[in-house]
């Protein structure tokens, strides 16, 4: 006997992601899922964002890595609440892991939660976590062809950050060609060109982050 199912394989994850989203909404926390290959500058961009918004936006961070607490220690040094998830081999964060992390973060004291996903351009795309926005970082040394090799994440992103633009003179990275290709498969994505080393372009990125905070008056409303 054949039974029609027609259900998304990740529907269980999606349901938990919706629960996470509802919890964050109830606590007036905006949430951004930051994704990229390993070494593209996720932690550096998060650190830059925290520094620029110090005293203005209360940021919390979830760090996702296969192992180690190196990133969590760096973020913790900025004096913000941070929780490290070690996936123990899994190449992405999922909604269950993030749900447990949310239970252990002081959400009432957080306006913006930044989730640093495990470094990977494939797997994190499939797993919703409960975020409002997805951000993808592509660093110049990785090359401008990644959009064709890993189209799903580029298609899903609300913003794409080209990081390490200080290295543009030494590579063949075609910013214009990449931006055109991105606009083709993703009309909504904002593009930012930044360097976390020279701090070029960070202001534009930070303005976008601030504009995506849904509850800017949370602190004064308390």
């Amino acid at each position, binding site marked *: *006997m*054949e*039974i*029609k*199912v*027609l*259900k*998304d*394989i*990740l*529907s*269980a*994850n999606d349901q938990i992601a919706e629960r996470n989203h509802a919890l964050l909404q109830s606590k007036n926390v905006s949430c951004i899922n930051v994704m990229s290959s390993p070494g593209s500058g996720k932690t550096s961009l998060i650190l830059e964002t925290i520094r620029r918004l110090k005293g203005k936006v209360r940021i919390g961070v979830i760090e996702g890595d296969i192992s180690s607490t190196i990133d969590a220690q760096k973020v913790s040094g900025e004096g913000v609440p941070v929780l490290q998830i070690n996936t123990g081999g*899994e*190449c*992405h964060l*999922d909604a269950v892991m993030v749900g447990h992390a949310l239970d252990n973060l002081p959400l009432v004291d957080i306006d913006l939660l930044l989730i640093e996903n495990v470094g*990977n351009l*494939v*797997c994190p*795309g*499939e*797993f919703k976590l409960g975020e409002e926005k997805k951000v993808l970082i592509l660093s110049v040394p990785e090359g401008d*062809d990644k959009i*064709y090799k*890993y*189209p*799903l994440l580029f*298609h899903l992103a609300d913003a794409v950050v080209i990081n390490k633009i200080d290295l543009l003179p030494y590579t063949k990275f075609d910013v214009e060609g990449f931006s*055109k*290709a991105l*606009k*083709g*498969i993703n*009309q909504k994505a904002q593009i930012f060109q930044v360097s976390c080393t020279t701090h070029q372009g960070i202001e534009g990125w930070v303005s976008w982050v601030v504009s995506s905070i849904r509850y800017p008056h949370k602190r004064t409303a308390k």
Partner: protein
Amino acid sequence: MHELAITQSMLDLVLDEANKTGAARVQKINLVLGEMSGIAGDCVQFYFDYLSKGTNAERATLSFRKIPTQARCHNCEEVFTPKEFDWSCPKCHNVSLEITAGKELYVESIEVE
């Protein structure tokens, strides 16, 4: 590499559906995988053989229907399969497109006894 989590999720869903109908055994699972989902069927099969041991779905056949990526041009409505390094419309060369297929990742049906 995310096939382990995907396979576990798929198996949970299948066992749940089979349980609802009171089926004793799942014989076949028909899966639909879009090209953009980046799921390797061989990996799913490998994990499935391991994860399904001792369940009602042990030794079930996995069938994969693969859906190629397909796009529709926002300008001329042409529906096309994007080329490897060129996602522009082959008819009018416009780059703005809507992805109409290739993101699928679902269980279409199961065959039970």
